[in-house]
């Protein structure tokens, strides 16, 4: 199936000389949730801004549903909704008026029934006549989402949607994203919260210094790069690792009560059986055994540092 967004050799160098994107290539599938992970200044917002028409690319091209974002900007932009990172809203507008304004910009007349349903979905219906400056930060964030959805886009960009919001709102936001996906909306979100990507994304892309380091299915990514650790808790303090255990490259905790063995679970021979036998032979008494899986956060840190 043709990707809904196709990015080819995209580069961006700002007037200051800062190269924000370096020859980036990416295809985004229709209906998926793609999380773009990266530290601050990685180029995530620049990428989104180019696709939405806010920033000019220096080189490369982007198509949305097969249409070029420069020559066919009316078609591509009408398919896209954008929730910016900052709470950029006029102070004196009412919630209802600001939604009507946004819908009008996309060439659509106010649709009372749709707007009412949208505000109800965002728990903003009671606030429809309130001035924006009277709303809380969380409500303003929801208004921004409403403005992005008001023209019924097929693609939604969420730039750091849960930055600075409380846990409850964050979970509400995730639920909303899932509901939108069920209606067929393609969602691209940038975040530096790993758990957010882990929780809601289908695919994860990692950007650092303007380069797309990798993009893969979330589970495949964890499968490929996720290391597993066997943690062996000892009944008595071990002063050092016995010589017979050296082949396993174990780590001994500072208190001498824990041995860690890192292994690849996909290997046919993990070496765990032999390790446990060797520990017994070395005269160490076991208290407990557990295994842990690398999180996306650990994978992300290892990618960015490498």
């Amino acid at each position, binding site marked *: 199936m043709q990707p809904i967004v196709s990015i080819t050799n995209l580069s961006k160098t700002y007037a200051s000389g800062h190269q924000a994107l370096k020859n980036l290539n990416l295809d985004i599938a229709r209906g998926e949730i793609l999380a773009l992970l990266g530290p601050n200044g990685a180029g995530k917002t620049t990428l989104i801004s180019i696709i939405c028409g806010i920033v000019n690319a220096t080189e490369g091209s982007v198509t949305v549903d097969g249409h070029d974002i420069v020559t066919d900007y*009316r078609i591509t932009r009408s398919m896209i909704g954008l929730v910016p990172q900052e709470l950029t809203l006029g102070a004196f507008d009412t919630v209802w008026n600001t939604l009507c*304004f946004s819908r009008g*910009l996309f060439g659509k007349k106010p649709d009372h029934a749709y707007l009412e349903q949208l505000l109800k979905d965002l728990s903003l219906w009671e606030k429809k006549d309130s001035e924006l400056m009277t709303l809380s930060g969380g409500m303003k964030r929801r208004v921004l989402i409403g403005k992005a959805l008001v023209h019924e886009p097929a693609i939604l960009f969420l730039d750091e949607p849960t930055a600075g919001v409380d846990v409850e709102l964050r979970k509400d936001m995730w639920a909303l994203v899932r509901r939108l996906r069920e209606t067929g909306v393609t969602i691209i979100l940038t975040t530096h919260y790993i758990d957010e990507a882990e929780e809601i994304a289908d695919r994860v892309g990692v950007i650092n210094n303007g380069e797309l380091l990798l993009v893969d299915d979330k589970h495949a990514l964890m499968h490929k790069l996720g290391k597993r650790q066997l943690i062996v808790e000892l009944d008595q303090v071990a002063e050092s690792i016995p010589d017979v255990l050296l082949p396993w490259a174990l780590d001994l905790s500072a208190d001498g009560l824990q041995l860690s063995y890192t292994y690849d679970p996909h290997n046919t021979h993990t070496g765990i059986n032999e390790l446990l036998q060797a520990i017994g032979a070395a005269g160490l008494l076991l208290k407990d055994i557990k295994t842990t899986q690398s999180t996306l956060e650990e994978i992300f840190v290892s990618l960015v540092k490498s």
Partner: protein
Amino acid sequence: MNTCAIRVIYKYEMLRAWDTMLQSFVSPVISTALYFVVFGSAIGSRIESVEGVPYGSFIVPGLMMLVLLTQSIANASFGIYFPKFTGTIYEVMSAPISFFEILVGYVGAAATKSFIIGLIILATAGFFVPLQIAHPVWMMGFLILTCITFSLFGFIIGLWATNFEKLQLIPMLVITPLVFLGGSFYSVNMLPPAWQTATFFNPVVYLISGFRWSFFEVSDVSVGLSLVMVLAFLGICLFIVWRMFKTGYRLKQ
């Protein structure tokens, strides 16, 4: 053509003027009344007439131009600068709307506001001095052209400005002196020959002269030249805006 988008931008800008009615409409009227009190009554009583026109009436076109120019620039520059300042410009930039449509929305609203203010000032002047309009069609033509041209100029300033100081810089340091020295309250013929020559380098002279001619058939330069100068300035503003949009100047990085 995304006419719906033009309409919402235009309506939004007009509502902003309505919400700040005192500042937008009442303030220029009060200023005009004060000018009539000071120039018309206090000073005007000592000047019988200028080129056969009573002084109080003579200053009406210049006074209208003074307010029109400052209001057109202020309205249009603030209209585009404020969304840039708050960051809300992102939704205009990411909408399926051309630069021409953005221009029509913002400049159209600013010019409309100035036009309304111009008519209010004209009506206010009618309470203070006897008025005649010899060529109403020309008067309306100059009024509309001035509103559009200087709203365009204000739009350019709004795009160029990176802070509130810059927003005020050109209107305060360039436009206001040019209007005051452009024959708003006097005829250029009243100046010594050397100053007359210098004055003709001031583009506002042609604007005021043409506008005054439409009222009293009295002018410092021919009406044709006035019209050419206004149209030339309009052309220059359009060219600058076109270049700014083409390069994404201060809008797209």
